[in-house]
Every structure is written in structure tokens, then in C-alpha cells.
């Protein structure tokens, strides 16, 4: 089972191709505010995360995920289940 650091590292890697502004990533980095992603980018990124960890992040869950740290926590929790 992957730990939170590993998950965070993997997520940072997945953010790479979508990080057009080269924003430095911390757990507090937000997708909409800091990375300035539109809904289409969000969808492509979510699909990449889902495929990487073999999970489903429902739209209901996505509504509560704003930052890289929150996403890592959500992924860790989904992988436990």
C-alpha cells in the first residue's frame, strides 16, 4: 500500500503536463486558484489520477477537493477501501 508521500509524489508527477505556469507544488496548492485550471483540464487530470491509482473519484467527491494535499488524502482513503 502506497503511503501519503508516495501518493503526493505521484500526483505531482501527474500534474506536470498540466502545470503550464510552472507553479511550485505544495500540499496547499489549489487546482482552480493556483494552477488556474478550467473544467476541461480538471477532467483530464482526474482521469489520469483515476487510471494511475485504479480508483474512481466521483464528481460528488471532486466538489470537496480543492488542493493537492486534499487530493492526496482522498486518494489514500480510496486506496484503503
Amino acid at each position, binding site marked *: 500500500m502506497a503511503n501519503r508521500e508516495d501518493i503526493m509524489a505521484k500526483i505531482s508527477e501527474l500534474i506536470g503536463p498540466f502545470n503550464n505556469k510552472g507553479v511550485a507544488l505544495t500540499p496547499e496548492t489549489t487546482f482552480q486558484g493556483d494552477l488556474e485550471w478550467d473544467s476541461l483540464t480538471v477532467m483530464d487530470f482526474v*482521469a489520469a489520477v*483515476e*487510471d494511475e491509482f485504479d480508483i*474512481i473519484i*466521483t464528481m460528488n467527491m471532486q466538489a470537496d477537493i480543492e488542493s493537492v494535499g486534499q487530493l492526496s488524502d482522498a486518494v489514500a482513503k480510496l486506496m484503503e477501501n
Partner: protein
Amino acid sequence: MTDLLSKFDPLIHERETLLATGVKDPFSLVMEEVISPTVAICEGRETILLGTYNYMGMTFDDDVRQAGLKALEEFGSGTTGSRVLNGTYSLHRDCEEALKEFYDMDHAMVFSTGYQANLGIISTLAGKGDYVILDIDSHASIYDGCAMGNAEIVAFRHNDVEALEKRLKRLPPEAGKLVVLEGVYSMLGDVAPLKEMVRICKENGAMVLVDEAHSMGFIGENGRGVCEAQGVIDDVDFIIGTFSKSVGTVGGFCVSNHPKTEILRLVCRPYVFTASLPPSVMATASTSIRKLMHSGNKRAHLWENSKKLHQGLRDLGFTLGTPEAQSAIIAVIMPDLEKGAMMWQALLAEGLYVNLARPPATPANMTLLRCSLCAEHTSEQVDQILGMFEAAGKAVGAI
């Protein structure tokens, strides 16, 4: 006091900026007279209609209009009540019979609009703990049905069979699953790969709902839609449709062979808590649906129109939403909203009405000039339309 409308300031500003460039407001056109399914008077000028959903041109059909007039005389102007109280007349039942005949299915429920049919059926079928799996480009009524219910919502990339399959396989096998698809996606006019998708849904224990709003009457041998054309209609659990497109009036419906369909009449809130459609609307709908069953020639002519317009626009150098004509909708992709609005206005000045579509209605933030053809457009009108596109496109520098 906080002005609750201040959240719309960015949109107000965007509209003011656009209108300041001198273009007409594309979202407040008025049709002063309607001559036929394909011609209206807009701002005193005769205008060819290429942006309606009147695919089969039924709005002015003599039998349809006569049926409406008769019902208006005999049953009055409205029902003033819910379908489950005083709002079911014999005409509502007859309309449901017409739908059962049209689709060769066991059950039909008529809603007051197509929007309410999606809203009601999706929110009622998928409850807490269930999953709705939908295409990311789904119509607003599908998203709103999801928002109204308590199910978990899972989106997949537009028309991506593999993305759908992966997601279905990741969901708990025992959970209730409803996959919501559309036959024709209305923005680009592209068709869904229903044959593969429906098979995958069945293999993974999901029920399937297909919205055939933009294909009814036109696509499929009997006009039953894309699921008929692709040979999977028997595996689809629910078909949602509307009367406001090919049928030529207003209203929505759900048809199904599911033996428990009738219970939905009592538990589906957008069905129960609203007034039923007026008798004249039911009579026009039933008459039109029965005529659409035998409209093979009109279907063939509409395909000719669609293919001709698609080829012609491509030859003129426009970028289109699909590589070939897949439905009666041909979407011309414009570089941005300002150019789109200029082109829209130039076309209107030429005497042609098309739909200007913009985000959030459109996928990928596109601005589209959506052309929807009618079986009553003559081949000569399509030639005229192409001439107008050429003149307008050159005038605004779009081609």
C-alpha cells in the same frame, strides 16, 4: 444588503463588451411571423430557419394542426392539474399509446417537458448509494437530474468506450448503476458508439438510459433513434425523448420495457408535482408521432440535406464539428465568441437564422454556429444557405 445578483457581474460585463462592438444580441431574436417550418419573418425580413429543432417539419402539418384545433375545442385550453390527479385526459393516455406503438415498447410516460423527463427519471432511478455514470458532454437536463438525486456521479470522456468500461469495472459490483448516454450530442451533432457502450454496460451489470431527443423521427429505420440504427434498442432499459424537436410541439417522455415502469408515475417528483400538458398539445403530439412512423421518404430527404450542407460548408473552408454528417445537426466551429457573433449577425443580414452556441453549453469552450436541418428544406434552399454562408464568411473574414 448583499446583492444576490452581483455574482452575475462577470457575465453582465462580458455581454456589455460584446454588444459594445456593435453586434446584435444573438440571444434575444424575435420571430414576428412564422411562414412555415423553414421560413419566418425576423425584423421585417424573410429568413430561412436553420437553427430550429423542427427536424421533420411537423409544426405546420395539416393533420397535426387539425388535431390540435379539435382538442382545443372539445377539451379546452388546459388541464390545470397533475397527471396523478385531474390532469390525465384520454388524450394523454392516447399520446402514451402512440409512443408505445412508435417504439414498440410496453410502457410510456409523458412529462411536461423533455427537461423534466431527464430530471425526473434520473433523479428517481438512481438513489443514495447508487451510481450514475455519464458522458462529460451530457445535456444540462442530465446533469441537473444528477444534482437533484442522491447518487454518486461518475463522468467519463466524451464518447470514449474504454473510459466508460474502466470506470464501470472499478465500481462495486453489487452497487446499482445507471449509465446515461445520448444518441446524438446536440452541440457538435456527433453520434455515440452505442453498440459498444450498451454491450459494455450489460456486461458490467449496469442499466442504460439513452436520451434520443435529437434522433427521434429521423435516425433508425423506424425513426426510433441511434439505438435502433446501431441494433441495440432491445438492450436499452430506458429511452428519454422530447416532443419539442421532430414531433414539433412540447413535452417529454420515457419509454421502457421494464415491467415495473408504471410505479415511476407515483414516485417521480417532476412528473407528479407539475401540471400536465394541455389537451391540444397531446393531440398534436399523438398525431405527429403516428405520422412519423411512416416518414421514410422524409428521413431520406433530411439525410440528403444534411450531407449536402456538410459537404458544401467543408468545400467553402469552414471547420465543422464532425468529419461527416452524422445527424441533422451541422456545427460550424468559430474561433471565438466575437467572431461567432459577427458571423451570426452577417448570416441574419443575409436572411439566415442559425443557433449561436457558446460555453458553458458547448464542449471545450467552443463557439459554434449550429445549423440544424429540416426535412422540409428544399434542395434549392440548401444551395441558398451555402451561398449565404459564403457571402457572410467572406464579409467577416471567417473564410
